[in-house]
């Protein structure tokens, strides 16, 4: 990879929810050596498009395991995947229900608000 390619990175990010026309937005960011894909997504939310939806908690400790997405087609944690130069494509998990943008439904069934409400209705 040459130096010019390294200076910028383009992130193609899937946008939209289950009822929308899914499409990709491309964001251009400066390339920071060592930065993770999650760093870039947070940077997009902070400085380019705050409406981007992405799930994360521990930020970069790879402890919470909430930030799993598809990166160039491969499932990975956004916090441990490094930015490479050039263009990277970021999509939500394919096998989970899409909520919006990169957020999918990874909440265990029994921890869902809806299932708790349903269970309590049955009891009474």
């Amino acid at each position: 990879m040459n130096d010019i390619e390294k200076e910028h990175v383009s992130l193609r990010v899937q946008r939209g929810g289950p009822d929308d026309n899914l499409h990709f937005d491309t964001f251009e960011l400066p390339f920071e050596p060592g930065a993770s894909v999650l760093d870039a997504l947070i940077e997009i939310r902070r400085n380019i498009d705050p409406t981007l939806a992405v799930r994360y908690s521990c930020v970069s400790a790879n402890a919470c395991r909430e930030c799993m997405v598809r990166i160039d087609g491969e499932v990975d944690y956004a916090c441990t995947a490094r930015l490479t130069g050039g263009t990277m494509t970021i999509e939500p998990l394919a096998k989970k229900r899409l909520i919006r943008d990169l957020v999918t439904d990874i909440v265990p069934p029994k921890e869902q608000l809806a299932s708790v409400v349903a269970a309590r209705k049955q009891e009474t």
Partner: protein
Amino acid sequence: MTKEAVHLTTDVLVVGAGAAGMYAAVSAARGGADVVLVDKSLIGRGGATIMAQMTVAAAVGHEAPDDWTRHYEDTIAAGRGLCDERLAAILCEEAVDRILELDEWKVGWARENGHMKQVTAPGHSVPRCVYVDFLNTGPSVARCLRGRVAQTDGIARISGVAIVDLVVRDGAVSGAVGFNLEDGAPVTIAANAVVLAGGGLTGIYRRNSASANMGGHAYALALRAGAELIDMEFVQFFPIGHLAPRLVGMDPIMWDPFRYKLGGRLLNGDFEEFIHNYGAEDSGKYTAPRDVTSFAIVRENEAGRGSPHGGAWLSFEHVPETELRAAFGPVIEKLLANGIDLTKQAIEVSPIAHYHMGGVRVDERMETNVAGLYAAGEAVGGANGANRLSGNALPEAFVFGERAGRFAAADVRGQTPAWAARDASAALATLAARSDGRTETSPDAYTHHAIAAELRALMWEKVGLIRTDDSLGTALSRIRELQSELEAAPAAGAAAYDMSLADWFDLRDSLQTAEAVTLAARSRRESRGAHWREDFQETDPALEENQTVALSADGMVTGWQPVGRR
């Protein structure tokens, strides 16, 4: 997006599902209560608990003879006169029961020849700290408690609901208002007892070890409900947090055991040792107290002798690779995967905000001055006084969580819900106004992130390691301006998983908590423990008192009160 309001009724609502909240839920259910456990993130994943990698202090005496009273003495000594002795005693005595209980629950404490291994963390007089290999304490604790919560009858777990306000009726808590992150729908929960286990506040500082959910939420919820806070000025900074190069998948405080085991050299930007210039002996021994190390790094940067990213160099280049590998096995591989070869390069470290000693003021039953409102975990203030011993935070979460759940359950037994919908109307109105869906959030109109970034910088520079009346005064007026700016910020759109809604409520809490820290720091005109006043460098014996913060009709007010004695 249809938003269907949801209402639930329970005996005990637990807000936050870290170690404290999960323990509270289990113990409240053991006490016969119906429990709802909510977290804005996922149960057991959102806070500090799952990130902890080091040790847990408890006088189980497996490694060497020990007794909880010795643990207590060490805790009191670290707290510099301000520990609530009753809470500290409870913490040290019951930590033993909790560590043994977690052992029964198969958390997996590291063992050797049939006994639990214990190491001596800084400030402890005996090897007392248990752990799970390798650097896996927090994840194991979180997994174990998650399993326990799931197996216990009577606990409903809800992930992805953020609580935005508690509801109070006639001076007693009657429930809470929140929203479902997925669709923004309001959620009301009637409960005659609420346990606040929402964790700490270090996310309000620019350099921190926090997750995304550690912006001081429990403190702000408590304040708005009429509860008092205590010791808010005491934020613990960890001296050698990781700064650069970018390191992922590892705890930012991981360098401490490296230094203790191998003796890393701490160097300024000119690659010279400097700690000895600040009145501490460090060279070759690495025993300089944490506060001295922190201040020395900040001072070197002020003098233009910082490392490139504004910290200090930490070098292990003099340590042979065989020794590095013997001491840290697989961790060395993880570092190499991060592009860090300790035999060839120094890394950069800096003090980072790591833990909060202060918090919600509670009695020995973990109850606040608002009837039915309990607190547990890092959200609680008092047990650790002006400084915390390393390894005391997780036991605090276990012990106080267990107690809060137990007393809350006993408290509500046989009661009918005090909930009345009108008590929740103000909180629901704010929620509705903030998510009216009419405004499309345009990036330009969206000021949340700018406010948050400014707050973190402000807290770091003016309410951080070195404080003066001037810096605190400036911070206080700016925080209040930022509060008005936040009020004026646009409402969230109507999209699913609209994080701007959560951002707004997070930031409201963070600004309020920041105000409490700054106010308390300003009126403590002395230096003690983690609180350093450049303009009042001595410890003043007359100020061996705890400071409280509360919300009054005229705003936030501070007060003094004698330290709780046994």
